[in-house]
């Protein structure tokens, strides 16, 4: 039993060791003492930062995250499906039909989201461009 956990333990040691090691190396090798106000701004050598460091996001990000979760959950179900697929196939096609109807219903959701423009971030520009083409033909 304990031997099973050995790779996990090794990985844990490597992960912690890497984090501690890099910090220690930076501390040991880095040149200390050259501390100034300029060192503490977000971009040390570039433009001066403007505005708050944590700006408020557009609601569109939220929408994408929410839709991501929905399809993420779908994938979770597909994983369990894949595990038992071969075994269940001998009892008939139920396993195939059930997953395909599941995906089918969610695909409808995808089509709906797509058509409503929820994933379209440049929708406004398209509408503006449309009339430019029309008069040339006439």
């Amino acid at each position, binding site marked *: 039993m304990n031997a099973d956990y050995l790779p996990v333990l090794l990985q844990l040691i490597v992960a912690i060791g890497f984090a501690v090691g890099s910090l220690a190396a930076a501390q040991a090798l880095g040149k200390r003492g050259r501390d100034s106000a300029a060192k503490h701004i977000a971009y040390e050598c570039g433009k001066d930062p403007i505005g708050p460091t944590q700006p408020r996001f557009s609601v569109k990000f939220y929408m994408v995250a929410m839709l991501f979760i929905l399809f993420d959950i779908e994938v979770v179900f597909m994983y369990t499906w894949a595990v038992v697929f071969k075994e269940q196939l001998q009892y008939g096609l139920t396993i195939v039909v059930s997953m395909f109807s599941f995906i089918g*219903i969610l695909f*409808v959701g995808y*089509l*709906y989201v797509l*058509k*409503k423009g929820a994933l379209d971030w440049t929708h406004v520009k398209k509408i503006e461009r449309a009339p430019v083409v029309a008069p040339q033909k006439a």
Partner: protein
Amino acid sequence: MPYLAPEIILTALAIVLLLLEAYGAISARSVGIWSLVGIAVAIVVTLFTEVGAEPMYFWTDPNAAEGTAGKGLYMWDATARFYKLFFLGTTGLVIWMSMESAAQPVGPKTQPIRAEFYILPLFVAAGMCLLASAADFMVLFVSLELVTITFYILVAYQRESATALEAGVKYLILGGLATAFLVMGIAYVAGFAGTTSFAGIIAKYNTPDHLPVAVALGLLMILVGFGFKIASVPFHLWAPDVYQGAPTPITAFLSVGSKAAGFIVLVRVLNEAFGPTAYATWGPALTAIAGCSLVLGNFAAMHQRNIKRMLAYSGVGHSGFILMAVLSGGVPDGPGIAQAGMTAVAVYLATYFLASLTAFLVITIVSPTPEEESIRSYNGLWQRSPLLAAALAASLISLAGIPPFAGFVGKLGAFVVALQFHHYGLFFIAAISAVAGLYYYLGVVKAMFWSEPLEVTPIQVSVPTQVLLTILIFLLIATGLCMEVFAWLVR
């Protein structure tokens, strides 16, 4: 399979309409009409599906031992059919109301009625129909979530108005809390019983002993979850604000459909998953809840100036009356809930369905904006539209429980059950509350007929809605006169 027909018809129709509308093939209005057609088809199919003497079970567990556990996930019996028809009827009338409110002028901050507003109720109806047949906590939970999550969307539909947003947030957060209690309760019960199937749980715990502590706690937590759905005290806090902020058709849906869905799962769980011995656990709890709901609902409704808030509190009171009918268990070796109680619950809900939906249909027409929802706007409604005034009067008098209207039959049934099962204290409280109910219901009726109107412009009602209102008034009186109709339906 014809037994799952309403759910399949509604879901398939909703999906097709969703795609057709998104790709611009049909207008929002025709989506509404097709939804009504689909519901009519589902009602016909449900009506003509045979009901056997014994409940039929589907998705039975092939590995379960004979007669002990796992009868199935989905059951079909007379109760299921009755509640399915109930939910389909509710959804139909709600979609009708939505089409009625779509015809009204749109304010600067109101969202126009989109196709989704007709499609989402179809999903709700499918979920409710599943609830009526649920024989397993798994199906119960997923269907209840389908109903609740769709309601979150519908309640917050007018998202540019502050009251609607408040309603949406309140419903979401308190609904989430209720779901957490429900799922925790289910986890306790299923964890100890070792199965999620109602039949399996009752097979394990229908013994003369008391329920184990954990199962009793689980059952109480499940009751908290259901108490939220039926808007009973102390889980009613969301009701007034949500009823007020939601679009009126959705308020009607919550008030009738969601409440009935809560009651069907309540009686199913108490009847199918727990036997008479569990009464020692849920009996006192539900008695307290019923008493508080009766008193608080009816007395708080007196002080309301907004008609939707008033109906919200009166709905809390009605939950109390129905719970009085639910409290008919505890007979040794009997069912979880006596047949008399089941019938009384069904009859009460049926009369509540007629009266409440008629009232909300009138409110949809008379109060298109939140400003016009004050009870003062109903002053002199008789002069502006005699039909609307008559319909609202009939429904309110029915809700108050005055003969010969339908509501009287429902109240009578609940009172008879309370006497039969010796809930004299509750009977007394209910009697006082019913009298208090007369005060505010008749106050509105009085305002409609004997007060001077704020404005005298007549209200136009489209011909189909006129016909529908006339039918509803007729049904309110007719069903009150012939109780046998119900006796036949729930037989």
